[in-house]
């Protein structure tokens, strides 16, 4: 009804005065309707591809200042299936070299995205101990979890930014395959049945990461030249960042020292 009434009035008005005041109004709205075409998102500027002939390498070693804590022995007698001896892996230092430090390119890669590697990384449970203790993996990459022990383990990650799960893995059962969708550094993983069993998964969005070995050494290859922030993360001693610039084909040495907690 409203519409009809106003239309009548409109027609009458036009006939009376010839003023097309209102028609002009209508025109305006038509125009704006045409301008409302499909919304299009501005395409992200394409990232510069990595030229394999210019890539650089960052490597170095991580040291521990001060007296290294003595690794404490773990009593595994509650489960006879846990063979061998086991020591705490909180801070593993041998002659000043710090192992199990996760090193990765935290910043500087811009908007580059990287394909998820097809190969799975393996997390092994043997001797009621995780191998490795710190594991790097890319977001979305498959982690294959194996149980080589003659006992049941359960794998229980307690993430901050990923989904939590907790699954049982009896002896000689097939590997569990999982992946983590979001970046998260030092995501704790534990076994509720063997309270000493603990390891960390670091999930990153780029393939430029490494974990220091027994001698504190690490190496990150294939890095395009540029300015980067390299982060060194340790489960107990926290994070240390360094800014570095690498030139084409350069092999840069980046060392890092950690102080004993509380010093």
């Amino acid at each position, binding site marked *: 009804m*409203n*519409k009809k009434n*106003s239309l009548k*009035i*409109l027609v009458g*008005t036009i006939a009376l*005065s010839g*003023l097309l*005041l*209102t028609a002009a*109004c209508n025109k305006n*709205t038509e125009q*704006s*309707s045409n*301008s*409302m*075409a*499909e*919304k299009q998102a501005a395409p992200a500027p394409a990232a510069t591809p990595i030229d394999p002939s210019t890539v650089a390498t960052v490597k170095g070693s991580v040291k521990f200042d001060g007296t290294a804590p003595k690794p404490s022995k773990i009593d595994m*007698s*509650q*489960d*006879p*299936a846990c063979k061998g001896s086991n020591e705490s892996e909180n801070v593993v230092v041998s002659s000043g070299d710090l192992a199990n430090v996760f090193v990765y390119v935290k910043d500087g890669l811009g908007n580059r995205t990287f394909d998820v590697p097809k190969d799975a990384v393996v997390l092994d449970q043997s001797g009621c101990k995780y191998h490795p203790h710190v594991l790097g993996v890319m977001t979305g990459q498959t982690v294959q979890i194996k149980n080589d022990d*003659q*006992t*049941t383990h*359960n*794998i*229980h990650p*307690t993430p901050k930014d990923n989904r*939590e*799960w*907790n*699954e*049982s*893995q*009896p*002896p*000689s*059962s097939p590997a569990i395959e999982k992946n983590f969708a979001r970046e998260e550094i030092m995501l*704790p993983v534990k076994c*509720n*049945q063997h*309270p000493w069993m603990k390891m960390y998964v670091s999930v990153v969005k780029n393939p430029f990461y490494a974990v220091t070995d027994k001698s504190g050494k690490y190496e990150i290859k294939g890095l395009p030249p540029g300015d980067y922030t390299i982060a060194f993360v340790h489960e107990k001693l926290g994070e240390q960042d360094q800014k570095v610039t690498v030139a084409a084909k350069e092999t840069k040495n980046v060392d890092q020292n950690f102080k004993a907690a509380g010093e």
Partner: protein
Amino acid sequence: MPEQPNPEQDPITSKSYAAYYLIATVILMATLFWALWDEAWGQRPWKALQENWKDRYSAFLNTSRSKSATSEKDVEQNSDYAALKQTYEKTYQDSKPQGDEARRKLDDANARLLAVQSVFTDRRAYVNALTYELETSSSDSAKASKRKEIDKYKNEQATVQFPDGSKQKYTFPQLEEKYNEIRDERTKLSLELGDVLKPVTAARAKMDEYVTDHMVDLTPQQIDGLKRKIGDWDPQIVQINVADANIVDRCESCHLNAREPLKITPASMTSKGDKKPDEYANALTSHPEPELLKIHDPDKFGCSPCHQGNGRATTSVEKAHGNYEHWLWPLFPKANSEAGCQNCHAADMVLASGDVQWQTINDGKDLFRQRGCMGCHRYEGYDKEPEDLNSVGQQIKQIETQKKDNIKQTAYLMKQADAAQSNDEANRLNGQAVDLRVANSKLDGRLQQLDFQSHSLMQDMKKVGPNLKDVRLKLNKNWIPVWLKKPTDFRPTTKMPNFRLSDHQIQAISAYIWQSGFTDSAPKHKPGNAAHGKELFETRGCMACHSIGEGDQLQGGTFAANLTRVGEKANYDYLVRWIHNARERTRPYCPYEKKDIGPEDYAKKGLPYKFDLDHSQCPNDGHELQVQNMTVMPSLRLAPEDAEDIATYLMTQKKQDPSSYADAAFMDDPNLKAEGKKWVRHFGCSGCHEIAGFEDEGRIGTELTFEGSKPIERLDFALFTETAQRGGKNAEPIKDNEDLARLPDGPAKEPWYDHKGFFEHKLAEPNIYDQGKVRGETEALRMPNVHLTKEQVRDLTTFLMGSEETSLPASYQYKPGDARHDIQEGWWIVKKYNCMGCHQFIPGQRTILMGLPQYQDNQEQLPPKLLTEGARVDPEWLRKFLSNPALSTTDTNRNGVRPYLKVRMPTFSFSDNELRKLVRFFEALSQQPLPYIPEQVPVLNTKESDMARSLFSSTAAPCLKCHATGDPAHDKIATAPNFLLAKERLKPDWVERWITDPQAVSPGTSMPSGLFKQQNTQWVFAGPTPPSFQGYTGDHRKLLTDYIFQLTPEEQRKVASSMPHAKASAEMKSNHKQAALESHRTGNGGSR
């Protein structure tokens, strides 16, 4: 007659008024156009908006459609979909020949039916016409001739030409028979065709279902449907009209997308050229909480019952939102939108839908209780116990009178009966007398129940602040005046508000409190071990309610006091008593005699001086006594030495030495006492504290139940009425920086002459409306500064704004009569005792303990989540557990179910009332019916038992590795409850769900998922099964559950010793083990 000279200038003849007329005409025309325009558009701003909406929304839908089509394609690419498609195509091909054949037959039958039908209906019509004539003809002869005519017609043969060209002749009865025959044949054929096509349609439906299930958003088809709707749209008023509730809401004339099934943000409704969303874009969003609309169907609830505003107005945004002087219910501002909930949900303490908690209104409701607002202000539903107690008392009196009357009446009736004229009369009267005796016996039962009630209510009455009758036992005397000066100076997070007391008032009040307190003394205790006390304090769960540290260092809950400086004020011996059992009272109080009862009263009657929940009758007159401190602090069932250790630790918590407080000798001045009493009354101290002489004192503040609907004129803005109306540069009267920081939107710039403005200013600086007034010390506003944060002011303001007398019919109030009522009542208790400080009730809800550093790496030590508690445990067991969480009357210094947890489930001394409500609450929350009728667990035969045992103890399912067994050596490392509890405690169906996927029941639990997998309709063990399982076809999950429910201590011992680990500890003296098990069993028995 003198000649009249012609005026030199005749205005009519000499001056042209054309210009004026022209101007007037133009003005008139302009007015006309303006009036017309106003009629068509000016008064109908929604028209232009709707035109805009059509464009913007269809543009948006186009974008969504292409996205939806892409994701549909993604879904269709899935191999599962491909498989479904393949199945569909295969069934289609398979059924094709058969289907074609059936369809052909059906078509043929249809054609034949048509041929017969055309002839048959013609002839039937003719027969009917003749019959009608027969019925209406008047003479018998005419009837007879008609009958003949009909018979003749019926016997005539009619020709039917069938589609295949053949011709047949039928009489009318034959024709009818043929017609029915073909019709039946057709029905049969179409059923056959349906059967043939069934797998095809089913396969097709599966494909479609797969797409709908796997699409996060709407499917392209659904979006096309929405687009069609816009295409046909004519500008119109969109209105919800609910006559019963007098709701007429035209909000959707502008908020067109409110109920659309997509998420529509202002950004997506912004026209292409604009950078920022304009007014239209903001109006065209979808409702941010579609889940809420599902519970509150807009067609029933409209918009304004929740949001307020003038639902009928359509002429402008201001009018529609009710933001003008003459509308009493303006739209709730966004920050306070949850105020609308309070209108119907005043009886709910916690508002949550799914895992969403409505935090603003919930916090407002909570603060009103926690901060002791209810101590001064009555609010329907809060602090109900004293009122209930009163009403129970009245009922008791009434029933007693009734009983007396009945006895009198009985005696009278019997007397009458004895003297009755006839036996019939006597029997009738005696019968009435008997009925009255029965009635009295029923009344006795009711009286008994009311007595229990009042016992419960007495137990349930709590005060926000501590009992000040204990000050002499409890406090450092010199500290009291310092505290009263400004409590936040000593303890910034305290609940005690700042009363702006003068030094003289402080002296008088302290003197009264001190002199009216008990002169008894607390038993002496030896000093304990502070380090051990600290550990206990941090692990037993104290910090779920109490905090320690200040500012950034503050850790723990804010439900109870911050203990950072408790060492400066507390008396060690009293603190030990308090920690051991805070409910322990110095002297019982008799509300009937209105006095504290002492040993002398007991001695007079030769009774021992003993009072507790089981000995709560007044020695003088048998009335119910208050035997507990009215605090919610529970008992942690600590050993006395542990209480000493914790108290010792807490006494170290101080910034200055207790002796450094200035001497307050004036507190003993008897002259100050009378004046002190006056001020205690004036400031309403007894609203939160128990104070001698004030036990029956009423509340001093106004009732706030309907504060939000008070007319604005009745809110006293005092000298700021104009300032608040005007707004602008000097609109903000608060000068104090601390108080300014409490205003949710900062200092006022806009006019704030509304309820929101009044409440916010009142809460930020309660005496603000005294500013500029000349008032004596007894006339000044008494409301203390509750030192709220910005957020808390917003929460409470929201709560008060929603506290309205609603015009909606009573059926709109959320007052369910079913199990949901139990949920409603339960939340009040859950909040009263801060159960949520330790336990998770709502998925995603954070507890205080979860936030503490000591649990970050140690989540196994957190108290259990209670997401499915009602479905998990037997309600009768739950009642026992809640009243005695140790599940034992002798071995109490432990947790009954989870002895491995350091954090302790305390004993809350719930009254029967509260126990009943809590049990019902948990059952209702998990949708469990009451009373609970346990499921019968089948008894396993020997073979089944053997199988279950071997699975139970296999290396693949090492249940006893984590679950406690009662063997102390093993239980040191146990992280789960003892299976022996299961039978009495758990519900079998829940156990089956639990062992299948514990992560779904209690996310983050130590118990792993994936133990069972589904095989056909059975659940079978996922790992390697013991050899005895070969050939077993039953459900493994069920078998294991049944086994758990019939586990005996002997059986468990047997299994434990057969496990690899138990061998290692087998050297342990078996009788020791036996003893441990026995003690466990007696512990169990205690709860039976």
